[in-house]
């Protein structure tokens, strides 16, 4: 697995690692059962602190994406529906926040934004595809 880490990207490196693993799993580059290098090995390969790798692995394990087996390494644990519901909510909230911020920068009031969302969700329903 190749990683591309940028310490000046404004995102903690361990998060970049996690995002890249998630992305790889989503696109199928990493499949269920694939083995990632051990913490120490990956740290030396990427020349980053092992704490960074450890944190990334620990969080990924928490999300259910990675299974750390003592001695044998870190296995990808990808289910068909790779994102858990909590995960989707969290990501969704981030996207909503960004959208709201940019609308506010354009000068829209909270009320106006809220009305836009309502309009989209409740009144435009018949024109949108049904959710899976």
């Amino acid at each position, binding site marked *: 697995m190749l990683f591309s880490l940028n*310490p*000046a*990207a*404004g*995102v*903690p*490196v*361990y*998060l970049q690692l996690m995002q890249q693993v998630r992305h790889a799993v989503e696109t199928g580059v990493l499949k269920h059962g694939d083995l990632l290098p051990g*913490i*120490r090995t990956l*740290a*030396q390969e990427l*020349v*980053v*602190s*092992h*704490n*960074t790798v450890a944190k990334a692995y620990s969080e990924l394990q928490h999300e259910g994406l990675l299974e750390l087996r003592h001695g044998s390494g870190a296995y990808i644990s990808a289910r068909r529906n790779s994102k858990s519901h909590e995960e989707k909510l969290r990501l969704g909230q981030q996207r909503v926040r960004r959208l709201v911020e940019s609308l506010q*920068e354009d000068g829209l009031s909270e009320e106006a934004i809220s009305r836009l969302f309502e309009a989209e969700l409740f009144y435009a329903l018949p024109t949108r595809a049904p959710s899976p």
Partner: protein
Amino acid sequence: MIIMPDALVIETHQLTKRFGQYAAVEALDLNVRAHQITGFLGRNGAGKSTTIKMLLNMTRPTSGTGTLLGMRIDDPKENREARRSVAYVGEDKQLYAYMTVEELIRFTRSFYSEWRHEVAQRLLTAYQLPPKRKVRALSKGMRTKLALLLALSRKPELLILDEPSEGLDPVAIEELLQTLVGAASEGTTIFFSSHQITEVERIADRVCILDHGTVVEDFSLDELQRDYRRVTLGFASNPPVDEFRMPGVRRVRRAERQLSVLVSGNAEAVAARGRSINAVSVDVVPISLREVFLESVQSGS
């Protein structure tokens, strides 16, 4: 759940070293925790080497106190006890020229009961150090590797390095960084001083910036990447600098009708304040370690 922070391997309190009128280190409060890689950044002459020498009892502080692995640095006996578990690779990187690699290993080994012979052997092969060659015939890169071998064969609790990449070519630097990362992953706490920002940015968990003998910044790399931001605000009239004395603001610089605000957190609040006082443009961008360093050491505040 309360997570206890790791122990402090280095702690100084108002540590000062004066040479006559000149203060190389001034009221230094340094805290370095175990199980991390901490980078000690500063310009040449900022006081990094002097600080390290005081920690190792090579130089006596003018005033202030400090502990190394919990033991007082100004007490020769306690410091000596600490040095049993502390390895040091100085910026000089000179070792006894007249000894061979083998002889130097045998010499060093005799001082430490926790010497790991297998590690020394493994590193000897990995670093391709010819055992029978005299130290004076080794290149700087090989001497650095030898110094690392002597340090790591003891599995020290703390490894202190002073400008370790000085004089090394890029390949050697890469190998050095990998070695440090490897050692850290096996439990050795690493504290290294450098003025090479790229290296520190890559492997450090935490950074202390030293300027004119005192700590001006102390943050983790995660904090830097997640929270530190530069908020650039443009105004149609004279920008009110005083409006930004807020929590999280580290530095405010003014360039005509623009303000550059360096924040260690709370970027949104600063941006919102800017908008509330009619800033015509608000830009929030991440900031690199290099930029933080340059801003910390070039100006006053």
